[in-house]
């Protein structure tokens, strides 16, 4: 018995050491990237301060394009947040073995993307300091928010999603925090012990945790689908041409999962490369995610084709104005770039088995993120530029404020992720121990 247990114990030690190593120290490259990100985020913070003090007019939005980059970014980041839920919840529920090194990286993306995305509806308000008026809090004037408004559904959904995804990230962290506490010193030891809620690893604790994780996986899956449906409702509940579409909810959910997987591929490639976790994040994981990305690319193409074909065939003047601008007017370069980024590139690079490598997966991750950002731009700005009365048509260009805040959110994502990998093991250690014991 003891002779058999010996190598397993050692394997544990190696895995634990491998996965806790990234927490220690910081390379000059790491510090440099953190520094650059902090600068960009600080600049974006200044831009927002400037907007709050001077007025929302410092942004480029104007009549009739009342929603611009802020809402584009909002939809984009909420979309990215779908990485964690799909990969993690579906793979956990189906008990797919290859999920082990992937889930936490995905769940962290969800939490950070939601924190960033959730800020945009506030940044975009004319009077951002009054955002809490959307919350149904008790007040002496008995004023309630308007539950008929999709924006209120949106806020409710995103609050719920943030809460759920933080819990969903935290639960599987608990056993790892206990381990990390045992193998670190100083303030980290105290922090990890506090966060691990004094986890001992008893059978009762494991049963409770398994039950909680399984339940949260089911809940978070439902919440994730509903959240991006509600984001789609912000557009489809209106009567604006090419927003008022019945397929918007599933179209947005599919697009969100698509861009979420793209973000996950990029994050995993970076973790593999810079944290030297090549033994854990193996080509097989990228291959599986590439296939998922390819699948979602085809689903996305199907929705996009259905949407545009129906509009084109319907030949309604109001919708035609939007459609023509999109496929052959001022927005055509964006539209066709989107088609190339979201379909042509992934279809070739990931569809042909010989070309499907970690490198091409990363390339596709980048193009899909660009393509999906453009999709949201085309939907938000494209429709608003062409209201029903032709006399009110207009265009839009972002100002430096919108560009700065947009850049700031990408830097914030990188920054939060960098801090996270230094504070918490990015790959779940205990999942490997379970494997060894099983």
């Amino acid at each position, binding site marked *: 018995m003891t002779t058999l247990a010996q190598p397993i114990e050692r394997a544990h030690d190696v895995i634990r050491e491998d996965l806790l190593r990234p927490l220690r120290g910081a390379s000059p490259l790491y510090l440099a990237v953190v520094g650059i990100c902090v600068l960009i985020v600080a600049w974006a913070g200044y831009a927002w301060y400037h907007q709050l003090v001077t007025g929302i007019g410092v942004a480029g939005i*104007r*009549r009739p394009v009342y929603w611009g980059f802020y809402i584009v970014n909002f939809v984009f980041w909420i979309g990215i947040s779908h990485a964690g839920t799909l990969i993690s919840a579906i793979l956990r529920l189906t008990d797919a073995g290859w999920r082990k090194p992937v889930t936490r990286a995905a769940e962290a993306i969800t939490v950070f993307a939601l924190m960033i995305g959730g800020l945009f509806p506030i940044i975009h308000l004319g*009077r951002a300091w009054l955002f809490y008026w959307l919350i149904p809090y008790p007040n002496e004037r008995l004023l309630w928010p*308007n539950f*008929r*408004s999709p924006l209120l559904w949106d806020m409710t959904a995103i609050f719920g999603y943030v809460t759920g995804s933080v819990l969903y990230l935290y639960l599987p962290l608990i056993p790892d925090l206990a381990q990390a506490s045992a193998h670190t010193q100083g303030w980290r030891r105290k922090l990890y012990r506090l966060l691990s809620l004094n986890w001992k690893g008893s059978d009762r604790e494991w049963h409770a945790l398994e039950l909680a994780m399984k339940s949260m996986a089911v809940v978070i899956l439902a919440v994730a689908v509903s959240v991006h449906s509600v984001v789609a409702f912000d557009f489809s509940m209106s009567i*604006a041409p090419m927003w008022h579409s019945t397929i918007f909810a599933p179209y947005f959910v599919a697009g969100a999962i698509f861009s979420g997987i793209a973000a996950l591929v990029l994050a995993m490639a970076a973790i593999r490369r810079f944290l030297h976790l090549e033994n854990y994040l193996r080509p097989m994981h990228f291959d599986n995610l590439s296939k998922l990305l390819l699948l979602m690319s085809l689903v996305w193409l199907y929705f996009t084709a259905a949407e545009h074909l129906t509009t084109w065939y319907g030949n309604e003047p109001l919708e035609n104005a939007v459609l023509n601008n999109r496929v052959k007017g001022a927005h055509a370069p964006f539209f066709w770039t989107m088609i190339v980024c979201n379909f042509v590139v992934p279809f070739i690079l990931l569809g042909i088995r010989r070309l499907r490598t970690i490198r091409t997966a990363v390339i596709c991750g980048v193009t899909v993120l660009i393509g999906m950002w453009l999709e949201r731009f085309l939907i938000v700005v494209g429709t608003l530029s062409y209201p029903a009365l032709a006399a009110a048509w207009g265009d839009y260009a972002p100002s430096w404020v919108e560009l700065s805040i947009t850049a700031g959110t990408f830097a914030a994502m990188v920054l939060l992720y960098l801090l996270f990998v230094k504070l918490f093991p990015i790959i779940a250690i205990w999942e490997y121990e379970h494997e060894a014991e099983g």
Partner: protein
Amino acid sequence: MPETATTNEHQAGAEHTPRWGMAIDLDRCTGCEACVIACHAENNIPLSDEASSAMGRANHWIRIDRYYEGEFPNIKVKYRPVLCQQCDDAPCEPVCPVYATYQNAEGLNVQVYNRCVGTRYCANNCPYTVRFFNWFDPVWPEPLELQLNPDVSIRPGGVMEKCTFCIQKIQRGKLDAKEEGRPLADGDVQPACVQSCPAEAMVFGDLSDHESKVSQWAENGRAGRLLEELGARPRVFYLERAK
């Protein structure tokens, strides 16, 4: 006693809730834009400079849309004054998350400036694009701030605004009638645009009163409503000859 009579008459008047509406005869409109100027003066609408106008930030609660028919030199211009259509099923109302816009008892789509947080969703969902946003706190070049109408509030930056059918003039009309001890008569209330139209192309009044001028115009064979097919049930009627 006269005082009692006044009270009774006023109460009798109060039982009747008007449904305000407007009719605009496009065959009479010359596109002179006097209504636009009058509206600006009456409603303390901020001015915009050349750059912000070019950018699309000029706020005119009423505007003249121009549509051209034919090719130069045989060109015909059609003018259409467009203002808030005060819809009975207004698409702007349900989408506001804080109830900053709603339909009041007299059918007006009112905007509550103090409640507005500036999501601008209402403006996106208005098919007529007649909602305007205050991009900044308003400033008037000296001495124009001295001509501001004391009956109309100044809107701060970050809130939506739009045509109110000159609700302050409706209020004034009601108060005057009450003071004189008579019910509000047709034509007592004249929004600034209607009052200033040199071609007399616009009438305003109570659509629930079939004798009123606006009802008669609205029932005219030439009358129709803008984007009627969207089902917002606007209460501004446009009269024009069928082609």
